[in-house]
């Protein structure tokens, strides 16, 4: 029941109001909020652009009432949940890479997993197609990130 709202400020100076539950899903932000003693400051300036920030906030709003905290498991889930695949449909592949990075930056575990799973699905599709170099290149980069952090490839 958080009446406390925070203001997330993107690097292109757009502000978004979110409540505490959203903040709680980002481990980086929630850690910080425990330390910042100044109760007046509720504005958090981020180095993320609003194009990315918006879907992130939407995603967190989706899950703000989740009863349990999301913990990264080993081995990770095999496929997207329905809710997540719904969400991912609206994300274009252009921003997927950046979105993943942003989720990593803010340390939102559920979103990280969802993005990576989605990436994997996209990549599988691409393997079949195998002719779009630009995409390949982008995904190659992702693959490294990916191979570094996700062990089940």
């Amino acid at each position, binding site marked *: 029941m958080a009446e406390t709202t925070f203001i997330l400020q993107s690097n292109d100076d757009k502000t978004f109001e979110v409540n505490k539950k959203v903040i709680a899903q980002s*481990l*980086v932000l*929630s*850690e*910080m909020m*425990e*330390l*910042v*003693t*100044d109760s007046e*400051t*509720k*504005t*958090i*300036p*981020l*180095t993320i652009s609003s194009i990315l920030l918006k879907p992130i906030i939407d995603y967190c709003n989706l899950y703000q009432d989740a009863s349990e*905290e999301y913990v*990264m498991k080993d081995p990770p889930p095999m496929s997207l949940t329905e809710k997540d695949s719904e969400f991912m449909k609206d994300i274009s592949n252009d921003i997927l890479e950046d979105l993943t*990075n942003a989720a990593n*930056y803010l*340390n939102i*575990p559920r979103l990280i997993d969802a993005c990576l799973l989605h990436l994997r699905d996209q990549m599988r599709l691409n393997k079949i197609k195998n002719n779009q170099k630009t995409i390949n290149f982008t995904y*190659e*980069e992702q*693959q*490294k990130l990916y*191979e*570094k*952090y996700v*062990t089940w*490839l």
Partner: protein
Amino acid sequence: MSENLANTWAELGKGLEKIYTNVDPVSTKQYMELYSHVYNFCTKSHLEDVTPLTRNRRNNQPNVATPSGAEFVGEDLYKKLVTFLEEYVNELRAACHSFRGTELLEHYNRVWESFRFSSTAVNGIFSYLNRHWIKRELDEGKTGIYEVYNLAVRCWQEKFFVHVADAVTNAVLDLILNERNGESIPTSLVSGVLNSYLEMGINEHDDPPTGQQVLRPTTNAPTEKRPRALVVFKTYFERKFLEQTRLYYSAEAQEFLAQNSVIEYLKKVEERIKEERDRVDRYLDTSTLEPLMKACDDVLIANYLDRFRGEFDSMLENNQKDDLARMFTLCERVDGCLEVLRSIMENHIERKGRAAISNVTTDANSDPKTYVNAILSVHQLFSSLVTYAFKNDHGFVQAMDKAFTSFINRNNATDNTKAPSRSPELLARYADLLLRKSAKNPPENEVEEALNQVMIVFKYIEDKDVFQKYYSKMLAKRLVHELSASEDNESAMLQKLKQMCGFEYTSKLQRMYTDTTVSKELTQTFKREVNEKNIDLHHVDLSVMILAHGVWPFQYMETCTIPPILQNVMDKFSAFYVARHTGRKLTFLQHMSRGEVTCNAYNRKYGFMASTAQMAVLLKFNDNLSYSLQEITDSLEFKNDLLCNVLQTMLKVDLITLSETKTLDANTPMDTVVSLNPNFFSKKLKVDLSKAVTRSEVRKEQVDVQKDLEEDRRMVIQAAIVRVMKMRKKLAHSALMTEVIKQLSVRFKPNVKVIKKCIDTLIEKEYLARVEGDRDQYEYLS
């Protein structure tokens, strides 16, 4: 690369400075900026340096060193951080050189708190590093790399704490000393300092404190309570603390005891132990509780056990319940202390019990009531004491039982008289008193209560079969002479005995009881038949009690010839009975039988209650008014002393007169004439002649019982031996003894010599044989 490092560190270093010195509170902007620096550093550099991985590399095993520069990069940053922290902590150390005592503690606490807070912030800022590079290092098992928070604490411990540890610890101990002396101290200060000790142990991966989980560095978990470990706490604090405790309390104890009594000392000890327990709750770690309690126990209690023992006895004397309870709780804490107390108590109870009985010994020989009451009062006193002061501790209850068994079975009353089994006899007599009709009949529940108490004492009696013998004798008398006060009480008593000793014990008693009821019915039937068949009984009203032979403890005794009137009736009844139960033989027990003789010789119609022998004599006066003793003896076939007994009561009530001598005993010449007194007068119409039981009879009875008992016991022992041997086939002598004693312990305590004799008898009778070559073994011969 290094450019990036330098740049990044320039920013980070400034930020960290600010955080640690706490000049301004951390703002979100600052935080996110610093965080981003770390993030950028870790990710961007990695991406620039990357070697293109082939797309075909599918199976990337975890934890293999991938050629990404991230590790490399993280290490540099980490090293910078380490250097920074160490420098900072060194500054702290220098700053607190001059402080001492409580001031030192305050300073230390302050510095620690702010350091903690700042380090948590820094941990958050570096969380990206924590999550990835550090985690990987730890997964690979590298030592010396820690999560940022842990790293900070470690620096604190190594560079700062170890130099001030002694001073700080001593300051804390001083405060505790003051508190023990009664001053109040700032406990938050102490608990703050001790908490820092607890946190510092986290990097030693052993000995997790009570209730906490193992120390896997927790990444990405929301700020939970940091796990604590005991190593630092134990080394730097606990050891000294316990030492100081011991010294302090041994000094205090000595001083106190020099000036105060043990009783006061006990109270003080109780207080102090409570205080120490509180202390642990308030600001020490719960793991300290056990060693602390042990230290206190050792110093305060174990060292003074001797003095306690001395006091214990006098406390028992004066029945100081509270003090005893206190001593018990304190001594419970130290092993081995209670045994001594138990044996002291046992001796005490025994002494008291014997004393109580000696007090009543003179009476006890004739009055079982005082005897039993004396025992019961002692029992009451001590069982309530054990319950209250010693909380029914198992050992104490046992000791009490042993003491009771000992003094109940062997005490002044039993040792004085020659009869070895006085206690059960007295107890049986007491029970008899309760159950027979008397002038004052207490209400039923009082009797019930008293019988319960009888059972309490009964529990401790070793020779239970003696009790049974006496009880059955008295029960028989009560039943035959119709002296029972209440049937309910009788059966209640039987129930209780059955519960305690089993069915076999009470079967005979039960049988006696049923016999009585059956006989009553039988008499009714007989009377009905007499009426129907018009059998002429010559106005003799007969009622008969049929007693089964082996069950009742009566012997057949010859008295005299029966006068023909009586004989007639007896024959008629015998005929009746035999007709009903063929194959049974009836023997009349004349010495138990009584009758009433109506006398029409005087103005008033008297009725004389008389025994059979007396009736015979009285009926003779129908024929003639005087006889010489010799005549009576001849015609009635009396034994001489019996006649004297018979006539004694008649003489007493002036029913008869003697010709020459006034006394009637064995020396009276046989030609003394006995005549019916024509001037006989009595106020009551019913005169009882039958109640003369002399002292010698009682004595004789006891001797008889003793003899019977010996015989019975021998039989029982032999039966037990045969039973045991049949089961075991072969058995060594000592084992046989133990078995037999165990089996018989329920009924009585057998004498070892007697058992030996029985074994010999059985060998003669060829039930057992000694094994060839091994004199110690027996074997069973079927």
